[in-house]
């Protein structure tokens, strides 16, 4: 087939197409380097010291892990608005189990470990409830997950009754190793410590990248987001792909909630309330299309670095804290405009 058509019509050469396929990653890479150069030049007194990077490595992974998981849902052409509440619910579950069961070993599992497993389990359940509404009942994802966002937050409020829960005791105790594995600090050199959550962020980032590029699931996510009907006709189990994406998001949100609890050794009921827009923004400035079919894990990773460093960066540059959101807004507007332009040209 197609001899005539091929000869009469010459599309772009391969190497150009190769660049075209990495355009997003290249763009966001340049932006990331640019942003950090601006920090370095504008506020060398801050950005030539390890302390600021340490603080980034402590905070960014929370937003970053959420954004990595959201990349799959958004590549599907859908959205999950409930993750901030799932974060809180996961953290609450872990903290509650831990503080109520300190004296008993359930199933031979010590309390912190049990709490973490319970928290992650609740995250999976949240993902399944989202799936039931969105995949099962066919409710648009934005509507369904706004519903569950309120519902999960409501549960947190009811159960916690406005009170926080301290996790301080877990830092020492017999399970300090578990605590360390999630939110500990590795002493790299005399003056430099490395937060464990940053290693998790990198590890999960690599895992997501491999899944997106090399695993059947990642491929199917792109196909479902691109052309759901075609995917179905070619034998992709579309509901299963969608459910898996929501469960991954629920699991990641609970995990982020747990890590963020352990980091500050405290659960508070409003946990996660301010993380929704930065996490979503990280995905969008990373070049994942809200229309579905095209996603970039590398983009999300870098997007999280930008979003997570912006506030500190802006303040170090001498701006008033009130300016933060103006810059958030600018970065988002500029990056999505660039992608829109870049993608149009390649079509």
């Amino acid at each position, binding site marked *: *087939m*197609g*001899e*005539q*058509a*091929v*000869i009469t*019509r*010459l*599309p*772009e*050469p*391969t190497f150009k*197409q*190769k660049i075209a*396929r990495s355009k997003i990653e290249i763009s966001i890479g340049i932006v990331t380097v640019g942003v950090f150069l601006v920090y370095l030049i504008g506020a060398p007194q801050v950005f030539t010291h390890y302390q600021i990077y340490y603080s980034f490595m402590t905070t960014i992974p929370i937003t970053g892990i959420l954004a990595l998981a959201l990349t799959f849902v958004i590549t599907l052409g859908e959205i999950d608005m409930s993750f901030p509440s799932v974060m809180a619910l996961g953290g609450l579950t872990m903290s509650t189990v831990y503080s109520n069961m300190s004296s008993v070993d359930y199933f031979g599992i010590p309390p912190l470990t049990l709490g973490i497993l319970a928290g992650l389990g609740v995250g999976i359940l949240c993902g399944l409830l989202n799936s039931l509404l969105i995949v099962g009942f066919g409710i648009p994802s934005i509507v369904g997950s706004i519903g569950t966002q309120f519902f999960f937050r409501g549960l947190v409020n009811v159960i916690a009754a406005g009170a926080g829960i301290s996790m301080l005791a877990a830092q020492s105790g017999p399970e300090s190793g578990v605590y360390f594995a999630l939110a500990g600090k590795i002493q790299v050199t005399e003056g430099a410590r490395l937060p464990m959550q940053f290693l998790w962020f990198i590890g999960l980032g690599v895992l997501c990248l*491999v899944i997106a590029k*090399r*695993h*059947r*699931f990642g*491929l199917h996510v*792109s*196909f479902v987001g*691109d*052309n759901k*009907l*075609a*995917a*179905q*006709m*070619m*034998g*992709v*189990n579309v509901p299963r792909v969608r459910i898996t994406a929501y469960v991954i998001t629920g699991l990641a949100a609970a995990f982020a909630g747990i890590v963020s609890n352990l980091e500050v050794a405290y659960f508070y009921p409003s946990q996660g309330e301010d993380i929704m827009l930065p996490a979503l923004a990280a995905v969008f400035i990373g070049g994942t299309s809200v229309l579905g*079919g*095209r996603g970039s894990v590398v983009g999300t990773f870098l997007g999280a670095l930008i979003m997570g460093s912006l506030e500190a960066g802006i303040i170090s540059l001498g701006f008033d804290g009130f300016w933060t959101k103006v810059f958030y807004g600018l970065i988002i507007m500029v990056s999505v405009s660039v992608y829109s332009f870049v993608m149009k040209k390649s*079509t």
Partner: protein
Amino acid sequence: MAEANLQNEAAEAAAKGDAPLLQMVDVCKRFGGVQVLDNVSLEIGSNEIVGLVGDNGAGKSTLIKTITGVHLPTSGDIYYKGEKISIHSVKKSRKLGIETVYQERALADLQTIWQNMFLGREITNKLGFMNIKEEKRQSELMMREHMGFTSKAITVDTEVEFLSGGEKQGIAISRALYFKADLIILDEPTVALSLSETQRVQEFILDIKRRGHSAIYISHSIYLLYPVCDRFIVLDRGRVAGVLDKKDVTQDELQEKMVNLVKTGVLA
């Protein structure tokens, strides 16, 4: 009356080992309140090319989608090689040896050629990680040998959105023909194809016959269907209006019958 008889027949035929390749028994399909397939019963023999004809909206595409597992019949049974297909799905029909070129082409534009070629049947290890190198290699083979893509500008890494309509169809067709199947279904495969490309599809279909396989060929062009088909099944508003052997009808007669059917509502 028909159902019990046909079911018995199917069972008997299966027992004797001369069951038709595919048999549909009283298949109905509703979408909401609309009855799109109304007690469709038909057979496709082995090594037989069957032309499926009917007006727009007659239910041809819906019919083949119940065969391929895209749609589940509301009622009725489908037998393949004499065995009833119980839990149907696209995966299952492929495993049984049914390949399809859908009218909609079923390609995803933003994904590459090799990704589209192997969609739904990725070469993976046990954990589901793909052997991308092998998929690309085989896609390359399909492109160069089966589709005759000669241009170096289009590679397996090209996204489908960069292809012309004919090239896209080439992908959809060769994807169905590459994976050896006993029953190949082609729903309007030649729409928008150039004359020479259409001729190639015709040759592909004759080749299916030569290789001893079967096909269901859907087209509005009787002049394309007639030369390559052994038998014609006429579908009219969801019902089988008639089955015609090639030896009992000339191309012109078939054409005329189709026109009359639209005008009068009866196949005469």
